[in-house]
């Protein structure tokens, strides 16, 4: 069941037009679906502690946006370790096996050649290419696996409708709590952000 919901979530990331979304839980004053609430922070330390507070308040669907990967933020947010290393190991084994198979089948069966009287299927000269292809496959798995787990590439995101969000890539920090979160309550979140020192607390509309 969780595998199915994972696939649906991924499909919603890439092909939002194919997925029927549940009716909105919160509607803004202009009648649009509410994506969530954001608060802006100007210092690393402040956003770090604010993230700890949001984590301790029990929110699940939320995120911190920062111009660079803040050291230790995954602990402050309580993010689980990523599965990317498993994917990389799988790709490495795949590349190794592919190279071994390719070299063995061509050298020993499809086009056997006598080279310095060595056995056709000797594995020693196959080692360099086995190494190279496992590195190659791992590199592809790392980049594309990272993007796929992140739901990227994607053309648009509700946060890009918020003008102050464009400062994140420069020097600001932002915490966004999504309306999908079961504990979502605009008043409580506003109070939490104010306590944590957030500024420009804004409700973000989804384009629906």
């Amino acid at each position, binding site marked *: 069941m969780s595998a199915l919901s994972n696939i649906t979530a991924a499909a919603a990331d890439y092909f939002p037009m194919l997925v029927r979304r549940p009716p909105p839980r919160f509607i803004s004053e202009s009648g649009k679906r509410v994506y969530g609430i954001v608060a802006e922070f100007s*210092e*690393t*330390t402040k956003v*770090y*502690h604010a*993230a700890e507070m949001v984590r301790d308040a029990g929110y699940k669907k939320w*995120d*911190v*946006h920062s*111009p*660079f*990967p*803040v*050291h230790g*933020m995954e602990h402050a*947010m309580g*993010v689980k370790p*990523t599965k*990317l*290393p498993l994917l*990389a190991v799988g790709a*490495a084994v795949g590349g190794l096996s592919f190279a071994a198979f390719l*070299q063995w089948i*061509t*050298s020993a069966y*499809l*086009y056997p*050649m006598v*080279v310095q009287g060595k056995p056709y299927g000797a594995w020693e*000269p*196959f080692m*360099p*290419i086995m*190494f*190279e*292809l496992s*590195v*190659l496959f*791992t*590199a*592809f798995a*790392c*980049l594309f*696996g*990272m*993007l796929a787990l*992140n739901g*990227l*590439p*994607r*053309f648009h*995101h509700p*946060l890009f409708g918020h*003008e102050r*969000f*464009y400062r*994140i*890539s*420069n*020097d600001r920090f932002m915490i966004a709590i999504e309306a999908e979160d079961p504990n979502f309550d605009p008043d409580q979140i506003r109070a939490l952000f104010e306590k944590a020192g957030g500024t420009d607390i804004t409700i973000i509309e989804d384009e629906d």
Partner: protein
Amino acid sequence: MTTFEPDQSIAARLTGLEPGAQPAPRRQKLIPGTRDDGTLTEDPGQRAPLVLGDRSFGEITDIVCGYAEAPMPKPWLALFSIFSMVAALGTGMILYLIITGVGVWGLNNQVDWAWDITNFVFWIGIGHAGTLISAILCLLKQNWRTAVNRSAEAMTIFAVTCAGIFPGIHVGRVWFAWMLFPVPNSQAIWPNFRSPLLWDVFAVSTYATVSALFWYMGMIPDLATLRDRAYLRLQKGLSRPFGIPMPVGKDIVVPFLPRPDTFRVLAYGLLALGWRFSSRHWHRYEKAYLILAGISTPLVLSVHSIVSFDFAVSILPGWHTTIFPPYFVAGAVFGGFAMVLLLLIPVRAILPNFSDLLTLRHLENMAKILLVTGTMVGFAYAMEFFIAWYGGNRFEYEAFANNRVNPMIAPYWWAYWTMIICNVVFPQMFWVRRLRQNPIVIWIVALAVTIGMWFERFVIIVTSLHRAFLPGEWHMFWPTWVDILTFVGSIGIFLTLFMLFLKFLPVFAMAEVKLVMPQAHVHDHDHDEEH
């Protein structure tokens, strides 16, 4: 047509939205009375600052993006014109070779590998610095690498591009070059997987691909920054229209074209893949970066080892030596760092605010790497010669003593001694602190090393081939004008690509530079006590 309202212009400057605006340069470039910019501290208890001038995050963005958005200074335009003409010349030489045949080079029956493979090994060696900086220095947590990694990786990719040209065109019938790869074909022929030349094909193409992936992945957040800036300017009506650059006076504005920022939003936006700086994304991104660094480290070491197998696995005296793999790797790192310095010291001069990010300390660190690897290369030269004598193989001894070293007998003695002076003697200057802290001296040594490393490959390849076992088959090799101009042209291609990189892409890894700045650390009393 820069008809800004005055208050709008002020507002734009305050929010850093003026296209191509640079923050004010540092007031004191050097500490008065010294040649020190404040980073050359020798006190081990004190860390040298990685970014100078008390820059904020926003100023880092403005410096790096500003240069990518503003028109380039006049020296850039002059150099770019020259380099692109040289690149065109090189392309012409390649076409001439393809149309006419490999006979336009000075190759003969004895010396059947000469400048082509020399240039190949030279360029592929230069490509090693980028991945070394981004992979090995990343694993060793050397934070100073953030100042040079982006440009060094770019340089790596351009060098590997130049390297890839030569094996491609030296095969003679270029239209059969696809047979280097195991492609199913109607003759049912498969390549010989027991040949180091085929290992080389896989090593170099893997290296080129992985370096490009690494470079691109590092650039995604910075491309998103460029995208966001261009989008905000468009939204605020601050985008300038296109102008035709004029050598004197103001540029001529072209009002009816779409604005450059429209193209920036499109191009950078597509390349940034919708990156939105999410910490959940950063978490996976950092893990992916670490794994890539981890696998690139053995990859860097393997690529030049495999290139050296091209020679070491043969039975030719002068090539058949077990020291080749480590010797080639050390030489590649040596030559690569020399090229990084050769390119970045002028960049600091042409784009002055970059000297806040690329400090004298960074140059000194790289000079120290040149000293270490240069000494390793010198040791390898000595050891190679020692084994040629001590190993008791007459042919090998002759290949060294009488074909390379002895000026009375060896026809290519000048190449050997150029190599020794440039690679072993020049870097020894860096034992003196004042010399390794002087950018001009570093640049001259880097130039010497680059020349010396080209001669090293020439010495290995040509002097071993030109006098093999039988005196009856001895031949000299002299380059033809096509040989020379193809090599010069490849330098042009390399430099043209690098100039385009300086203009259009973020030259410093902004996100990583911000990460190593003091403001990026979480200040917390509880947190500090844990450490």
